[in-house]
């Protein structure tokens, strides 16, 4: 049990998908100007990434590995992720139109989020078990959401701050992202990881 907790902690904080592995940087810069939209993007990504980790593990271990077709991983995983995103969109539209209104524009964007492809690829090549792959996906997306919301909060404050004209807008955001990444490096070694 404590192993799984440690795994969650490790994927969410120590090996944070955005600030340590540098995956999923486009939504990190693109959808982080408001906390609300950052949270929406984070939740949609959490849902898709967790499902994608599970589905990709199944396809990898039930189809690709027995047939010796591991070199088709990227192709097969992209297919699965695109289907999942479409399916999620339909499901959300049916189950909760309110949430669809909020997430609507962010849902299709997840298809091109490299974190969603990267996490299943890494866990497939490390030959992890199903539970580990699932937790890896879930923990990473939790870390993704956390960093998105943190960074959106920073940017909301930055928008009000009196920054030098040279740094106004995106440049200060990039500087800030770098500092945040340095701060997350401080988690290295947490819990003996």
């Amino acid at each position: 049990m404590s192993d799984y907790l440690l795994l969650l902690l490790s994927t969410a904080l120590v090996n944070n998908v955005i600030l340590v592995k540098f995956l999923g940087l486009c939504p990190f810069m693109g959808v982080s100007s408001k906390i609300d939209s950052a949270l929406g993007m984070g939740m949609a990504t959490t849902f898709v990434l967790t499902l994608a980790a599970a589905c990709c593990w199944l396809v990898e271990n039930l189809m690709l590995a027995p047939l010796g077709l591991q070199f088709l991983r990227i192709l097969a995983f992209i297919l699965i992720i695109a289907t999942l995103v479409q399916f999620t969109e339909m499901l959300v539209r049916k189950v909760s139109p309110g949430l669809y209104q909020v997430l609507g524009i962010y849902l299709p964007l997840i298809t091109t989020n490299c974190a969603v492809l990267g996490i299943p690829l890494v866990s497939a090549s490390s030959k992890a078990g199903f539970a580990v792959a699932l937790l890896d996906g879930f923990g990473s997306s939790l870390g993704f959401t956390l960093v998105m919301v943190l960074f959106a909060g920073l940017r909301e404050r930055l928008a009000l701050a009196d920054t030098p004209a040279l740094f106004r807008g995106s440049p200060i955001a990039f500087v800030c992202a770098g500092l945040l990444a340095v701060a997350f490096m401080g988690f290295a070694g947490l819990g003996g990881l």
Partner: protein
Amino acid sequence: MLMTVMPLTALGLALGFLLGGAERLLRVPRDELEEELLKMLPGSQCGQCGYIGCAGAAQALAKGEAPLTLCPPGGRAVAQALAERLGVEMNLADMPDDVPRVAQVLEHLCIGCTRCFKVCPTDAVMGAAKQLHQVFGDACTACGKCQAICPTEAIQLTPVAPSLLTWGWERPLATREV
């Protein structure tokens, strides 16, 4: 070779059928009226009506929240079609009945600022920074967004000159008044 192609094909087919099934199962009953109205609108999502794209406009029209004359690029033709579909009697005489128009770049005024092709909803303006911009007439819906944003008034909406394919007899004067 076959062993590589077949599993991927099977996977693609399976996922395709899955999505198709889900689409049927999870279909949201959409308003038929809304769909029909959406088809009547130009579909260039220019946003001049104030709604988010043509879908938003169709939604508002179906609810009766928006005036039928909301679509500037559609002009009188679209307003008339909408009125017919919604069964509303309307006097559209004071709505300008424009001939089809198309945006045109005045080459002596264009400074190549690239603002116009950034706002174009149909990607009909082509160009690069500090180069003359050009309009693709086929793609232009004459929504006028580029005209509004141009800092040097270098874009004009000019009527499309009738060609052999588009020319027709003028309607008799007696029928023009509604």
